[in-house]
């Protein structure tokens, strides 16, 4: 029972990341009609926003260490600590959540620049060409990051308060041994919030209405005299922000490295396809579903009978779904049918 609950939470956690990335992918698919292989790179860039923000906060200066009196020893002290004392240290401690405020404008700018500079010119080209050019872009982004941050994963600690584990078992009246890292719970809540607000944005605002109409029939929306072009740019920016936020908050769970984008890209494409191209609820549902499936497949009981199933379960499910339900779980008729 404990193990199942833990795996369920693990799955929801992983699924939340998949769902967030897939959400942005689907938005871009559905409206712009562009297959964006650089979307994983946006997720990675989000994580590196957190890394950069932490680096900026901890810019240090050499000062004399007063605790050592035998000789003059030096230690690195961040400017923030010198200026604000304990308050500065607290800010550094909260680097990851605070970097959200940096990530939103940065990712928005990156998204807008990408759409204006590159994606726009590929609306009319074939899907194969879109895939190739964004694949090239993903390689470029990845290599630039490697040039500046190196090839090794960079550990990003969550704030001290939530670095321990929550006693879920005690809350639920199960066993006391059942604990789960606080940060993962926060990540899950955060993802649900982001997903909720994206849906609210699309359902409740006029802009969202236009976007949904655009996903249904792009041409018609254009005929009605709406500047589709500008809306598309904003949507791409939005998708980029969502992917970036997913990356920022995932940094303490998985130390960011330059190729994490590529790793998540394939998975999130599979998620989109399983959910149904152009279906936002489908993307979210498939994200969580596949996340949970993957973590259940990695349980020892399962891998005893089917060794290696945890490695391939997602792809296997994708292949089966694509062959039996060509439109995915919730795909609409007439959207991206070859």
């Amino acid at each position, binding site marked *: 029972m404990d193990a199942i609950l833990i795996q369920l939470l693990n799955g929801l956690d992983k699924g939340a990341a998949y769902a967030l990335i897939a959400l942005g992918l689907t938005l871009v698919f559905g409206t712009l009609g562009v297959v964006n292989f650089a979307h994983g790179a946006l997720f990675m860039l989000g994580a590196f926003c957190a890394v950069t923000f932490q680096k900026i906060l901890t810019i240090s200066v050499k000062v004399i260490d007063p605790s050592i009196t035998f000789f003059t020893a030096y230690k690195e002290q961040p400017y923030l600590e010198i200026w604000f004392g304990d308050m500065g240290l607290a800010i550094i401690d909260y680097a990851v959540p605070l970097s959200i405020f940096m990530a939103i404008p940065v990712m928005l700018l990156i998204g807008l620049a990408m759409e204006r500079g590159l994606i726009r010119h590929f609306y009319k080209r074939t899907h194969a060409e879109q*895939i190739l050019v964004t694949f090239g872009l993903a390689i470029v982004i990845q290599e630039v990051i490697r*040039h500046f941050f190196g090839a090794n994963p960079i550990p990003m600690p969550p704030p001290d308060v939530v670095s321990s584990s929550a006693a879920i078992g005690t809350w639920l009246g199960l066993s006391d041994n059942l604990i789960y890292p606080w940060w993962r719970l926060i990540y899950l809540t955060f993802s649900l919030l982001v997903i909720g607000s994206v849906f609210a944005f699309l359902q409740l605002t006029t802009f969202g209405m236009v976007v949904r109409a655009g996903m249904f029939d792009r041409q018609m929306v254009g005929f009605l005299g709406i500047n589709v072009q500008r809306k598309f740019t904003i949507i791409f920016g939005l998708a980029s922000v969502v992917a970036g936020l997913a990356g920022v908050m995932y940094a303490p769970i998985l130390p960011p490295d330059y190729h994490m984008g590529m790793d998540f890209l*394939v998975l999130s*494409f599979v998620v989109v396809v399983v959910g149904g191209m152009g279906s936002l609820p489908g993307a979210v549902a498939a994200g969580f579903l596949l996340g949970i499936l993957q973590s259940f497949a990695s349980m020892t009981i399962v891998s005893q009978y089917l060794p290696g199933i945890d*490695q391939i379960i997602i792809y296997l499910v*994708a292949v089966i779904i694509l062959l039996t339900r*060509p439109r995915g779980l919730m795909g609409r008729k007439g959207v991206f049918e070859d």
Partner: protein
Amino acid sequence: MDFIKKRSDLFIMTVFSIAVFSMPIWLDPIGASYPDLLQKFAIFGIFAIGYNILFGLTGYLSFGHAIFIGVGSYTAVWSFKLLSMNAIPAIIFGTLFAGLIAALVGYVSLRRSGIYFSILTLAFAQMFYNLAYSVLSPITNGETGLTIAADDPRVLDRLFSDVAAGGGLPSTEIFGISMSGYSGFYFTAVLLILAFFISLKIFNSPFGLKLKAIKSNQNRMKYTGYNTRPYLITAFVISGMFAGLAGSLMAVTDPLAGAERMQWTASGEVILMTILGGVGTLYGPLLGVGIMKYLENIFSAINESVLQSFFAFMPQWLNDTMVVIITPFVGEGWHLTLGLMFMVVVIFLPGGVTEGFQKIKNRFTKSKEQEKLKQGDE
């Protein structure tokens, strides 16, 4: 007509063979004539020719061809381990087994087209890659990679000759001719010429024409009464077998196989080579392979000191800035250049270098044609 066509085929093949066999001579001036690089040219040439049969002719973008490279390599190494160090059974088994896997993957993936096909092949690539690392470790030797050992069974070798016990690692050979250095290159070159010949035949055959028809309009093709699926599967299997041959040749020239060859980004490399040269053209992919492998070779060898001596004629401050600017793009950063090249080619020259040549040629010949048109008007 038929006779002339045959003659021209013969002509093309003769020129091509001479060009390939004399590569050590005419590539010497640009410093690309050493066997290692030549072998790479030939091997990736086979890979790209095969990929072009699928992507170039039918327009189906597969991200799964690295699977067949990997399968070919593993099969070849197993053939070295179990049967013989002779390269011929290795490449035969490698090609056939890769073809078998390609039939399996193709049968499933080709039920869908367009982007769904790409994602299906992507899923298969990840599946095989992950399996090679985990469950299939007894066959693939996991992260370490599969290598030959001195005490392998090698049944055939032991049957026909006394294998000296306690000797060092045997090397790959064909009836006594070692497969390293130039002899290795000539072996791969012969296979490259063979592969090119097959590709030439396919391009000119009714089968090739049908594949092109699938690319231009599959629906119309279906309405005419063709069942396109068998043609697609055949094309997929052929290109998979080419990839398997290339993979087993990699093992022949260097008898080890690792799972990293199967990663889906490795398929990206062959896509780039094909596109860089010119998708769907006969010579394009080979051109792409040549350009890319040559550039890779040069770029990844450059480091800061090389750059410094290269810009030595400049004043010191300019020299330093140039070095700082260029360093990220060379050596370790070769992949950055690769990505940029990829983007530039797809954006500006979707038809690759061949299209570039065509454009230049048109510019020169256009004026004459226009004159002719004008005269016609009058």
